[in-house]
């Protein structure tokens, strides 16, 4: 189907179902229960899952296929956001032109940075991209204030022209982002028993775009072009002596992955129309590297899993505070309770990075292929024990 083989079609369908049913899947605990704080099924967070999923899918096209580790991808994310917000300011609040512009601008940006950075490989390439991203960050933060509005960040205002839209709504407020009148923040809540499921237009818009982005990445992986990109990672010497010029291949991969990042940045602005320089900081570039490696670099689904994993920790673990912990450990004797809470407190709340760091180390050491490898091992273990059980059955038979 859609030019995919059976295995990839199955994967695409499974991912599509998981994404489209995310409001149910991510909301397993009834409202008001003690576990409800682990629910991730609210629009704001689900949007982040899929948007950063797009970011990581794009990053994986560069890093997973060609092996070039870019440390400056957040620059494209930021450029995408700024472009989208400018489109909202100047043209209209429709998200389509905003997304198109953010993809185009980040693509051009990636072409320029890639053209220079790809003259080197390995650590030098990483450092060059990092340098470019930090330059972009500082430009956005101070020098280019007329375009980026400096440290305040670019925001919409009532004085914006919005040629095809209106500067202000009838009641004098700033109009909201929409898709041909369908407001992004519009949401429907469905109450089933004690569960409350939220369905928002914004999430489903992002989800469908992410599925398209995922489908395109499968096509790239399976195409002759994708094969050439994997060849770049494997042996550039042989490529050169096989009559292939590696530079345009790596540059194209870099531009594509920059455009994915721009798309993600544009969508972030569509969901919440403001753009700040901190989106381009090196920590944001590092985050997408973590996502990709954590999920499994070079695999199709890995980056999406990694993005979901990290964003879940960022939003859920960081919300647990001391009083929540006190509640959990209240069954312990007083002194012990204090000690346990004191230790645990460092791993939650603002200390969630510590938990993430430990998990990341464990995954990299024990599962070099990321979460995908973990899944494969569990699958092999289950099917292996089934086979063993079967073998044991057949073995015992002759004995009877």
């Amino acid at each position: 189907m859609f030019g995919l083989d059976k295995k990839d079609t199955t994967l695409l369908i499974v991912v599509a179902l998981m994404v489209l049913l995310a409001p149910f899947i991510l909301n397993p605990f009834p409202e008001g229960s003690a576990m409800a704080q682990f629910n991730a099924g609210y629009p704001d967070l689900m949007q982040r899952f899929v948007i950063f999923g797009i970011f990581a899918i794009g990053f994986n096209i560069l890093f997973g296929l060609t092996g070039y580790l870019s440390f400056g991808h957040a620059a494209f994310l930021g450029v995408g956001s700024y472009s989208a917000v400018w489109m909202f300011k100047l043209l209209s609040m429709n998200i389509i032109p905003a997304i198109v512009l953010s993809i185009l601008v980040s693509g051009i940006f990636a072409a320029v940075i890639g053209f220079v950075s790809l003259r080197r490989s390995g650590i030098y390439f990483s450092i060059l991209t990092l340098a470019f991203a930090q330059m972009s960050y500082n430009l956005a933060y101070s020098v280019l204030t007329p375009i980026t509005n400096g440290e305040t960040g670019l925001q919409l205002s009532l004085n914006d022209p919005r040629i095809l839209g209106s500067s202000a709504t009838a009641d004098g407020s700033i109009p909201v982002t929409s898709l041909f009148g369908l407001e992004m923040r519009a949401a429907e809540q469905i109450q089933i028993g004690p569960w409350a499921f939220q369905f928002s237009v914004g999430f489903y818009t992002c989800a469908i775009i992410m599925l398209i982005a995922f489908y395109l990445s499968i096509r790239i992986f399976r195409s002759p072009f994708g094969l050439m990109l994997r060849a770049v990672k494997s042996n550039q010497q042989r490529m050169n002596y096989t009559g292939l010029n590696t530079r345009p291949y790596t540059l194209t991969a870099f531009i594509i992955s920059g455009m994915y990042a721009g798309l993600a940045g544009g969508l972030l602005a569509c969901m919440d129309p403001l753009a700040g320089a901190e989106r381009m900081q090196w920590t944001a570039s590092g985050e997408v590297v973590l996502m990709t490696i954590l999920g499994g670099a070079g695999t199709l689904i890995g980056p999406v899993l990694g993005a979901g994993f990290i964003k879940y920790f960022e939003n859920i673990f960081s919300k647990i505070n001391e009083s929540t912990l006190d509640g959990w450990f209240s069954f312990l004797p007083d002194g012990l309770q204090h000690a346990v809470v004191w230790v645990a407190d460092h791993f939650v709340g603002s200390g969630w990075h510590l938990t993430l760091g430990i998990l990341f180390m464990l995954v990299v050491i024990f599962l070099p292929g990321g979460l995908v490898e973990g899944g494969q091992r569990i699958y092999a273990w289950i099917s292996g024990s089934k086979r063993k059980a079967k073998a044991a059955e057949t073995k015992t038979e002759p004995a009877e």
Partner: protein
Amino acid sequence: MGILDVKNVSKRFGGLKALSDVNLSVKENTVHAIIGPNGAGKSTLLNCLVGKLIPDTGSVMFDGQSVLGRAPYEINQMGISRVFQTPEIFGDLTVFENMMIPIFAKRDGSFRMHAYETVASEAEMVEQAEKMLIDMNMIDKRHMHAASMSRGDKRRLEIGMCLSQQPRLLLLDEPTAGMARADTNNTIDLLRQIKAERDITIAIIEHDMHVVFSLADRITVLAQGTPLVEDEPQNIRGNPKVREAYLGESA
């Protein structure tokens, strides 16, 4: 005039004169061996032919066109394929994928963004790759990771990848270096078969005299950066100059 003409080529590395005034002509559809003791400049000469090094003086003409100043991929597109001393293959890819890459490169040139098709849907290319794998006697290994194969199989795959592009000149850099005797003999048989079945010129750099004398139509002996003699194999064997270069003055 041969298919490959090397004229007055010199190359210096600092104080070391690696090649001085090398003249060499490889005739079409022959196997031309270049032999010589260590440090004779064999590898430097080869690197000058494929664009890895640019000689200080002289010219290298392939089929009437200069190869100097061209990048390795451009020289390959002209019709020269190179086999390396240690097999250079795509270790992370399967044997089949390894074979597809040169076939795509032959059809599409140095760069083309083929993102619409899938590798499997390019039926004609797949057929070519499978045919070459059958010719190389490797079709049963098609799903294997290339890196996990034996040295002899890697060499066989590399030669197959080069041949799939139907090059006019095949350059082999010590193709049997570090191989067991059985693998060496297999490689000799393979090269003989290629020579018999295809319109191809082969230039081979080799240490192993057994390999050289079983394959070459013509031999150039290189010593200290200059060609000592160029002759047919039976005349090289007894040549006192060659013995001297190989074994030293005392011999």
